C-alpha cells in the first residue's frame, strides 16, 4: 500500500544537560493513523524526547522534519500551532470546571465579547461523540465527579478538539483500573483510526501490545529498536529495555 509519509521524523537528535548526554543521536518517525509506542526504562530519555517535540526543551542537534519539511520546534506555542498536543500524566484538568470548560480552557470561543457557551458545548459533545465516547453522561458534569478513565478521556478529547495531527500520551493508563484501561486504549485506537498520529509512552507492555502499530525502544539515550508490533513479542521488548538485547535498528 506504500508507507505513508511520516508526520514527524527525527534524525540524529541530540540533547544534553551540562555534562550529561540524555539523547545521543536518536532517530524516530511517527506516521499518521498509527499508534507509535515509545518504551524504555526510567532515565532512558523518553521525557526529553517528548519535551523536544512539545517545544518545551528544543533539541541541541539533529534534524526535525514535520510533514517532510525541516523545522525546529522552539516553543510550546509553535508545537500547538503545528497541531502537536501533549496529554501529560497528571492531565492538568480543573476539577471545579465542567467538561466543556476544561476542553476549551485557554481557547474559549467568544461571541460579542462574552463566552459562547452553547457553541463550545456543541463542539465538545461532537468531539466526544466523534471519538465514540459513551461513558460520559453529560458534558456539563464537573470534572471532579468523573472517574479516572473519564478524566483521561476528557484530556484526550481536549487534545483533539482542534485540527490535531499528533497526540502524545504520557502514561495514559498508569493510574487506571482494568475496565477503565480498556476504555482508554479503545479510545487511543479510535484516535489513530481518525488519522491522528498517536505517540504513546508507557511502561505497561500489555497495553503497548494492545494498541501499538510500531514500538520504539530507548535505552540510555539511544534508540535501540524500532519494531513492528506484529512481528515482535514482549520478551524481545523487555530485552531491549533492560539492555540484555543489543541494538538493531531497522526491521521496518
Amino acid at each position: 500500500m506504500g508507507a505513508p509519509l511520516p508526520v514527524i521524523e527525527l534524525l540524529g537528535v541530540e540533547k544534553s544537560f551540562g555534562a550529561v548526554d540524555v539523547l545521543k543521536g536518536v532517530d524516530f518517525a511517527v506516521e499518521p493513523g498509527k499508534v507509535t509506542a515509545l518504551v524504555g526504562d526510567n532515565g532512558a530519555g523518553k521525557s526529553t524526547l517528548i519535551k523536544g517535540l512539545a517545544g518545551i526543551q528544543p533539541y541541541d542537534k539533529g534534524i526535525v522534519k514535520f510533514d517532510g519539511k525541516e523545522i525546529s520546534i522552539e516553543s510550546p506555542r509553535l508545537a500547538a500551532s503545528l497541531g502537536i498536543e501533549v496529554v501529560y500524566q497528571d492531565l492538568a484538568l480543573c476539577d471545579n470546571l465542567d467538561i466543556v470548560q476544561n476542553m476549551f480552557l485557554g481557547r474559549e470561543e467568544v461571541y460579542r465579547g462574552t463566552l459562547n457557551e452553547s457553541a463550545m458545548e456543541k463542539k465538545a459533545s461532537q468531539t466526544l461523540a466523534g471519538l465514540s465516547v459513551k461513558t460520559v453522561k453529560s458534558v456539563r458534569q464537573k470534572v471532579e465527579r468523573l472517574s479516572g478513565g473519564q478524566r483521561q478521556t476528557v484530556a484526550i478529547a481536549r487534545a483533539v478538539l482542534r485540527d490535531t495531527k499528533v497526540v502524545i500520551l504520557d502514561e495514559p493508563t498508569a493510574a487506571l483500573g482494568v475496565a477503565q484501561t480498556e476504555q482508554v486504549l479503545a479510545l487511543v485506537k479510535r484516535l489513530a483510526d481518525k488519522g491522528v498520529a498517536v505517540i504513546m509512552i508507557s511502561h505497561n507492555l500489555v497495553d503497548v501490545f494492545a494498541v501499538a502499530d510500531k514500538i520504539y525502544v530507548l535505552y540510555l539515550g539511544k534508540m535501540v529498536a524500532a519494531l513492528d508490533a506484529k512481528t515482535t513479542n514482549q520478551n524481545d521488548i523487555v530485552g531491549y529495555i533492560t539492555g540484555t538485547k543489543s541494538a538493531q535498528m531497522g526491521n521496518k
Partner: protein
Amino acid sequence: MSTTNNTIGTGYEGNIREQISGYFLKVKSGDMGSLPAMIGLIVLAILFSIMSPVFLTSLNFANLFNQAAALIVMAMGLVFVLILAEIDLSAGVTAGVSAAMLVIGLNAELHWTLAIAIAVVSGVVIGYFIGIIVAKVGIPSFVVTLACFLAFQGLQLLIIGSGGLYRIESSEILAIQNSNLSIVQGWIFYLVSMLLLTYSGFAARRRRSRNGQPNRPITFLYVKIAVAGVLGLVLVAALNLERSSNKAFPIHGVPIVVPVVLALWVFCTFILDRTKFGRYVYALGGNPEAARRAGIQVNNVKIAVFTICSTLAAISGIISASRIGSVDASMGRTMVLSGIAAAVVGGVSLFGGKGRLSQAVIGGFVIAIIDNGLGLMGFNAGINLLITGGVLLLAASADAISRKRGNVVVR
C-alpha cells in the same frame, strides 16, 4: 464525522421532573451552593419576626438593607480572592483608607464625583500593589495582606490624625445611604430590573437554540421570573411604606444604596460568568498548573483579582462612610472579618475554585440579620459575636464536609 444523534447529554435535557431530580442528586452529592445559607436566612427571619415586634416593621426592613450594603460589597470583592484560594486581610483597612481619601477630596472642595473617583482609585492602586507583590514576588497573600493591614492602618492614622474624625458634609455622599428613591422611582426601578431579567432569560434560551443546543423546560424560566417578580414586588412595596413616626418628616422609598449594590452585583456576576477573565479566575482557583499550561497569564489574572477586591473594598468604604456620616482612623478595621464570614456563610469555599457573588449577598444578609435581630432583642454585642462566630464555624464545616463527600463519589 459524527452523526447528529449525540449520545452525550448537556444536563439541559429532560422534562421538569427529571430536571428537579437531577438538582436533588446534585445537592445530595454535596454541591449545595447557597442553599444552606438561604434556608438559614429564612429561618432567622421567621425567628426574629416572632421574637421581636420591631423586626418586621418597614423601618427595620429598610434599616437592614442599609446595614448590610457595605458588608455585601466588601464580601463580593473577597469572593474574587477566595475563588483563587487567596485571602485579603487588608480589605477593611483599604475601605478605611479609601474613605479617608474621600473626605480629603471633599474637604479640598472637590466635586463629590471627583472625591468618589479619588477614593475608588485609591482602592485600585492598593489592590494593584498587593497583586504585584503576591503574583510577582510570590509571598503568600496572607502575609502580604497582613502587612498591608498593619501598614494601611498607619496610613489611615497619618491621613486622619490620631483621634481625629472627619464629618461628611456632602449631601450627595450622605444620600447614598440616607436618601431614598421616590415611590414612582422605586416602581420604575422594579420594572426595569424585571424587564432586564426577563430579557436576559429569553436571550440565553435563544442563544442556545440558535446553536442547536437543548434548553431546559421553559416553565423554569417562568417560575424564576414569577418568583423574582413577587419578591421584588413585596420588597419595593414594603420599602415604599411610610416608615417615619413623625408626619412632618416622611421617610419612604427604596434606599438609593439598593440599586447601587444591585448594579455592582449584576456587573461583577457578568464578569465572572460570561467573560474569559471570569473563566480564568475559576480555572486558576481550581488548578493553577492546569491554568498555566492552558496558556493563561496566571500573574495577570491574580493582579486583576486583587485589584477588583480592593476596588470593591473602596466602594464599600464609601458606602459605610455615607452611613456613619463620618470617617475616623479606625474605620473598616474589623469589617474585613465580617466580609470573609459573609462570603463563607453564603457558601463560598475557602479551598478555592468555588464561589458566587450571590452567595456573598446572601451571606451578607445572614450576618446583618443576626446583628440586627439580636440587637433589637436587646442582646449585647458579646452574644452577637458568639452567635456569628458559631454560624461561621457551621458554614465552614459544611464546606469542608461537602468537599470530603464530593471526593468519595464514584471514582
